[in-house]
């Protein structure tokens, strides 16, 4: 399958090589029934190598997750076999139920119905902290 074979859906392009699978699981793409193709270490003029994910369905993508894991990706929206929109993502100010607080003393550790909320506290260094206990989110693998 290449881009041409997607009728209505999207291509997440320019994913940092090696991050495709992480995005696949965080975006919960395994729960979709439509065709999905993941390209790993694809040759790219811009990046050397990159990962790419093609989704053959018009889904509601959580762009916060993309921005958190890999803010340099581009999203191509495909309709009737054509790219109708190219989108970039930005570092989200807030992450809701994307990552979990690992602090055993945090209120979220004993009240599981609470949303897991992280806020961007240092944009330059991409630091996210738990809203409740201010514990730093685990470093992203770069």
């Amino acid at each position, binding site marked *: 399958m290449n881009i041409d074979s997607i009728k209505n859906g999207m291509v997440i392009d320019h994913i940092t090589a090696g991050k495709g699978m992480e995005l696949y699981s965080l975006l919960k793409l395994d729960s979709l029934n439509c065709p999905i193709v993941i390209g790993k270490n694809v040759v790219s003029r811009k990046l050397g190598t990159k990962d790419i994910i093609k989704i053959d369905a018009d889904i509601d993508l959580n762009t916060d997750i993309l921005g958190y894991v890999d803010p340099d990706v581009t999203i191509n929206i495909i309709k009737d076999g054509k790219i109708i929109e190219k989108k970039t993502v930005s570092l989200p100010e807030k992450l809701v139920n994307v990552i979990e607080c690992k602090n055993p*003393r*945090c*209120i979220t550790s004993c*009240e599981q119905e609470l949303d897991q909320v992280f806020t961007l506290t240092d944009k330059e260094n991409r630091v996210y902290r738990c*809203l409740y*206990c*201010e514990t730093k989110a685990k470093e992203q693998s770069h």
Partner: protein
Amino acid sequence: MRSLIDIKELSLKELDSLIDTALDIIENPQKYSEKCKGKKLATLFFEPSTRTRLSFEAAMYELGGNVLGFSEASSSSSAKGESVADTAKMISCYADIIAMRHPKEGAPLVASMNATIPVVNAGDGGHNHPTQTLADLLTIKRKKGRFNNLTIGLCGDLKFGRTVHSLIAAMSRYEGVKFVLISPEELRIPSYVKTDVLDKCGIEYVETKDLCGAMPELDILYMTRIQKERFFNEEDYLRLKDSYILDPQKLENAKKDLCIMHPLPRVNEISVKVDSDPRACYFEQALNGKYMRMALILMLLGIK
């Protein structure tokens, strides 16, 4: 609805106004004795802290208000499995303001997100304890008359001591403040406090193991307890603990107007022989805590 969960939520202007109110309460207590008539403070203490609870209760009584609540989790609904959110909603029906202590970090924030009345964080685990910092600030103001141009020594457990971290955050907002961070190697200030607070605010600081050496330049000495559990072995603890016990001898080279503070309870880190020294401010600090809690209750309830 305004709450106070973290000391950083208060602007400098609000802090000044709280301090002005507290100073006015000290001068004219009778003026405030009926300000909270008919109002109820709920003290929700999911872990015991008699000292903090009594301070809140005394504050509310001196404002002419009433108090209800519980002093440990086993006598509360959480023992039956009720969530903090539900407790906060339920208490909102009975009281006008909540003071909450909880062993889990962030619990008072969850309460404030669900209550329809103001919530004051009365300590959430090792995380925040803003009213302790308010007590510290009023003490500094009353003793020094200013917040700027002060050299502040923080001594003891700087790694786990939340009161120390909050005080650094609060004092780093003023001009000309310098910190001398005095601790054993094992209990040095966490690096994030240096990068996220001190460096960010451009605050001058030095780290040292030597309390006596630091003493002569200090305007304020803030002592904290070094707990045995923080050390890997008994020998290290025994070797180090005496160097961080304040006694009259160590004060020989201190300034005449040094202000000695401690969040209390004290175990042995300040010798009782220091208590009669006019520079000892720690019991006054506890009293100041009550005045600041009174000022805070008035502010959050919107009572002038």
